[in-house]
């Protein structure tokens, strides 16, 4: 049987007993995110012109856009935070926040929506079948 004090790990373990812990007391102490970290997609409903480019380019099929019903929605649980939609958005309606999404339970769904699902409606649904006006027109700004 080897002498335990000659074992290299025993000394380090004893030192660890009195050393500062390597972990944080989450959630009381939260590490701030790094500047360029990709956390969560943020959407600005007032500038979107429903061009649907983000939906077409999303590799995870997380974004759904409907011109007729004027709905822009995202499934955060499908989103892979690759930043493609932010890069292709010509109206700069999409941005990447460096904060990750907070954990949710089924009870946390806002307005009866599923957790992880976010949906925006721009003005009233357009039932006339008229082509979608672009963002400069007053109707879209409403």
């Amino acid at each position, binding site marked *: 049987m080897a002498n335990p004090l000659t074992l290299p790990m025993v000394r380090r373990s004893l030192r660890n007993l009195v050393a500062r812990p390597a972990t944080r007391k989450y959630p009381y102490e939260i590490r701030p995110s790094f500047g360029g970290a990709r956390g969560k997609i943020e959407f600005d409903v007032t500038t979107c012109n429903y061009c649907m480019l983000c939906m077409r*380019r999303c590799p995870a099929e997380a974004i759904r856009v409907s011109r007729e019903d004027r709905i822009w929605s995202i499934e955060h649980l499908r989103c892979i935070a690759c930043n493609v939609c932010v890069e292709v958005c010509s109206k700069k309606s999409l941005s990447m926040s460096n904060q990750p999404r907070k954990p949710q339970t089924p009870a946390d769904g806002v307005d009866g929506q599923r957790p992880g699902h976010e949906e925006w409606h721009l003005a009233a649904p357009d039932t006339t079948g008229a082509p979608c006006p672009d963002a400069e027109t007053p109707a879209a700004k409403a």
Partner: protein
Amino acid sequence: MKRTVIPFGPQHPVLPEPIVLDLILEDERVVDAVPTIGYIHRGLEMMVERVEYTEMGFVVERICGICSFMHGMGYCLSLETIMNVEVPDRAKWLRLIWAEISRIQSHLLWLGLGADAFGFENLFMHCWRMREEILDIFEKTTGGRVIHSVNRIGGVKRDVSDAELAAILVRLEELGKAFKKTASVFATDPSIAHRLVGVGVLSPEDALSTASVGPMARASGLATDTRLGGANLYDQIDFQPVVETAGDCLARVAVRLREVEQSIGIIRQAIDKMPKGEGLPLENRPRGNPAGEAFTRLEQPRGEVVYYVKANGTKYLERFRARTPTFANIPAMIQLVKGCELADVPNIILTIDPCISCTER
């Protein structure tokens, strides 16, 4: 003698990933092992038919969380070959640096898992504490800890400033010093030697005949390393493949221990040699759709990976295929398991560093 069949996995305390193996035993000795591949098949290769080739790189990265950077890089390199795109110099160097950082990350992860497999919980935590530092570097430079999404066809999306690269190097050197102490535990602790020395010996002939790759082959004395081919700027780096000759479990651990230090050296050389300055071009984005086919080989942390891409002139590729290193190492693993004691099976399986997400995609 009566034979017993023991299912090993997909759920097993020692396994980080769901490998499926039926062990056939005579008493305590394993006489045969039957692997089954496909338990976590997700059909990622098929997605090229639905996702445009420009965005597919971000899906390819998600084949596996540990080799994510190199998967994205291999896919982009294949398409750059098809479309004849010249990647700007700084982007090439950044890719090399990130690739080596991800090798350090993967080896630290594995060393921790290996320590856990032979019952050294304390060492496992030490390795993973060091890995956290590497993940912080990734989050700072690429924006993601595990899935980086910085590779794009024709270059990289982000630049890392020269000051930040210097800071990363300082951090890695400090990490290297701390790592040396941990590495000495792997090398000198008698309880580790008791579990690993002489267990699962793969002779150089067997390593060759089973076509094993990466640290597995190098631990058996074969100096194979895809990086030696010199592609992706490795011809400008001075390095020698890490080779051990014992071929047992401890040799495979030793190869990975030395490769961590080697990668820090490669990063130091790369930061030295890369073109400096702000605002250098990072991307040379191709126009049009690709047509043709290409093979790409890379040295992942687990060994050689091969990508095959076939494009037909539309924005959707016809075929994408990845032959991953774990898949190449499975025949050698089966050979090692035959004839060993049941209690040694976890160590042998873990030392090939199985990545089942990659293998089954």
